[in-house]
């Protein structure tokens, strides 16, 4: 029923006391481990801490940090706050669509990239800002974009 190795979820569960207040922390850890909340994982968490599955599903759909569908190996976040928007974040989105056939909220067919369009990340002086995994890229234009993305393609210098 669970699409991934149950032991990996089990060890995350055992890191916390079986109490309802750890629901979000456990879901975050599962998200971090698998890049999404695998099918069946909510049921396992529910059985352990006693929070109903419906409530865990509500948490999983409420927080953007949690996802019920698999995410790519690298998550690209393009800031579309006011400053970034004015400095051309929409042309970045168009360029990403051309380069990777990727729309906001989607994942590439090879599972390498996910794209998210986010609101202000608080780095307006660096607009337009793009974040891949935990690395920030400032004043990105379409030429820079292609080079940055190449580093994250399979075998690229940032693709570990």
């Amino acid at each position, binding site marked *: 029923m669970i699409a991934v190795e149950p032991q990996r979820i089990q060890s995350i569960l055992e890191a916390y006391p079986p109490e309802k207040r750890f629901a979000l922390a456990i879901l975050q850890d599962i998200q971090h481990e698998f890049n999404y909340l695998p099918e069946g994982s*909510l049921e396992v968490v529910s059985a352990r801490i006693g929070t*109903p*599955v*419906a*409530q865990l*599903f*509500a948490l999983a*759909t*409420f927080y953007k940090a949690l996802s019920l569908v698999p995410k790519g190996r690298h998550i690209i976040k393009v800031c579309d706050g006011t400053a970034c928007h004015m400095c051309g974040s929409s042309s970045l989105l168009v360029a990403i669509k051309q380069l990777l056939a990727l729309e906001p909220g989607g994942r590439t067919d090879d599972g390498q990239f996910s794209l998210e369009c986010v609101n202000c990340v608080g780095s307006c002086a660096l607009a337009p800002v793009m974040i891949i995994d935990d690395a920030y890229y400032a004043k990105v234009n379409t030429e820079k974009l292609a080079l940055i993305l190449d580093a994250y393609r399979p075998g690229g210098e940032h693709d570990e």
Partner: protein
Amino acid sequence: MSITITIDGKPCVCEPGEYVLEIARRNGIFVPALCSLKPVLTERGCCRVCIVELVEDARSKVVVSCIYPVERECEVFTQSEKIVRERGMILALLKLLAPDATLIAQLAKAYRAPDLDRLEPNPEGGTCVLCGRCVEACSLLGTSSLAAVNRGVSKEIATAYHAPSATCIGCASCAGVCPTDAIPVVEDGAKRTIWNKDFELAYCEVCGELLGTVASLEHAATAAEVEPLFLCPVHKQKVLAQHLAHPYKP
């Protein structure tokens, strides 16, 4: 120590900490409310229809009467000009959220809600105002099959994964507490369909009266640690009376 407040000019005695809506209702003053269902459910304060104007120390403020505890003497107005205007706006917005709900349309008309032509009604139509009564009712029964999923404009009441819930017992309590009849319950004599799940219906073994779903009777019996009895209240009484009258007969 009791205090006296006035609601629409009528003196009302109450205890400090009591909610304005309860005091008004106890004194026969009607305040419309959608999400409040005391004493069955806890106060939610989310529909905002029950707003009233409260004047305290010559200062006026608009409060949500179902969750506003009275602390000292004050004057409450349930029909002031400001309240009529603001309640009308709230109802107009609820009507856009749930354009197919008869009750909301009636309330909007009765409280002279303005026509908000510049705003689009919910394109999916619907009758749910997201008050969350159903979620709490389901939780109180110990089934917790429902939750408010997603957020913002895509928020809705649903089961986990939008799939038939493993814990749902088909009791239809959610539909029973819904103020706008937004939860469809379909019965065809043999089964009830609710939240995409089919349930076998149970009838009284003697007179054939509809009792509910088999699963809900079993759930209640398990909670009470007894065997489920498929009898209506009248025949349950008769069977138990027989049992008491003849305790030693098999």
